[in-house]
């Protein structure tokens, strides 16, 4: 599954908690961050996540351990770390019918291991492959009944990209309006991408940051 959000911004908190209640296990999760104070970490309480593809997982600058980190060190979960810009482009490729992307990010680092280096017009790039998911859990501010989504401020982040790259896209929104009530100029995710809309009151979270 893909889970939208960037720390507190645009995180489908209600959907994450619903998934915790449902108890689905052996999940591979693709998300920007999982760590101390992050909502996604609640799924580790009952060991629901088996594999994590993420950009931000274990923060060297804090001594506090998330549940994810405890399970990572016990060998109960596995981790693929991906640079943030590469993560989002792999998702975009997965959602838009592309066979991958070429980026200079990660050259001469551990990120390069096992990847093809391709020269284009005299510049070296890494070939990064597409990412797709069975389900994407995303968050937006407002939806219409057709499934068009409007985002607020930096609540966009990964959400519009993940909406394109999963077989089933479930959006948590604060408000659902009648079709025709959204200004087409402001739609951030067109209805074609969205399968389910859930209206939820936002869960108040005050995060300490990553």
């Amino acid at each position, binding site marked *: 599954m893909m889970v939208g959000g960037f720390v507190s911004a645009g995180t489908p908190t209600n959907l994450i908690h619903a998934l915790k209640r449902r108890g689905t296990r052996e999940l591979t999760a693709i998300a920007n961050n999982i760590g101390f104070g992050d909502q996604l970490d609640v799924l580790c309480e009952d060991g629901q996540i088996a594999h994590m593809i993420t*950009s931000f997982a274990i923060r060297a600058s804090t001594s506090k351990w998330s549940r994810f980190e405890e399970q990572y060190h016990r060998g109960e979960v596995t981790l693929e770390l991906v640079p943030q810009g590469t993560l989002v482009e792999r998702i975009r490729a997965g959602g838009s019918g592309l066979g991958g992307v070429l980026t200079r990010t990660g050259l001469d680092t551990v990120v390069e291991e096992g990847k093809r280096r391709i020269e284009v017009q005299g510049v070296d790039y890494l070939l990064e492959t597409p990412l797709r998911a069975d389900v994407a859990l995303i968050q937006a501010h407002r939806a219409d009944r057709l499934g068009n989504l409007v985002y607020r401020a930096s609540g966009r982040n990964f959400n519009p990209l993940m909406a394109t790259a999963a077989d089933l896209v479930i959006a948590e929104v604060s408000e659902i309006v009648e079709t025709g009530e959204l200004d087409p100029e402001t739609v951030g995710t067109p209805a074609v991408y969205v399968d389910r809309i859930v209206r939820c009151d936002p869960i108040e979270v005050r995060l300490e940051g990553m």
Partner: protein
Amino acid sequence: MAGLTRELMALRVARELRDGMVVNLGIGIPTLVSNYLPPDHGVLLQAENGILGYGAIRDEGGFDPNLINAGGQRIVLRPGASFFHTSDSFGMIRGGHVDVAILGALEVSARGDLANWSIPERGGGSIGGGMDLAVGVRRLIVAMEHTTHDGRPRILERCSYPLTARACVDLLVTNLAVIEVTADGLLLREVAPGVTPEKVEAATAAPLVRSPDLREMAL
């Protein structure tokens, strides 16, 4: 270790910025820089989570989960701000549209290699936007403590921790000194008030060349 506080390091870094620059601030000391720009500044601050044109870190008022910097801290918007999704945000970064990145570091090498995302003893790590910024921005400034908590140098002949990117750092601002990474090696340009060049050299595990106009930092 004597020298500058985190706040004074942020103040010194802020002096490197000019009106019209697009600047990304990493987590840690760099995020403090937004609080040391003059109120009427013309710097455009970019946050990976999709904001161009934010202002200082906000300690008061309510918490809007969607108005944060990349470190999750509350921020204020300035006139002319804009929002965009993560693909646009990193297109901006990799595409050379961000002039300066200010990042924290665990280690920096004599030729400007950067290691800032993983401590092997701890395992895992957090790459975040660091690798993209290191290859994409025009100028990379590192703001960090000169040594570790137990006094070991962080500026080394070569990095021992996993790299963020090779030969990407242009300027180092530490609690002890301002050091420029040049083709001929590390150039000691400024020392913190009360800190001697000898003390900086003793805390650095790579050759330092003293600049002909080496001076004390003006704060």
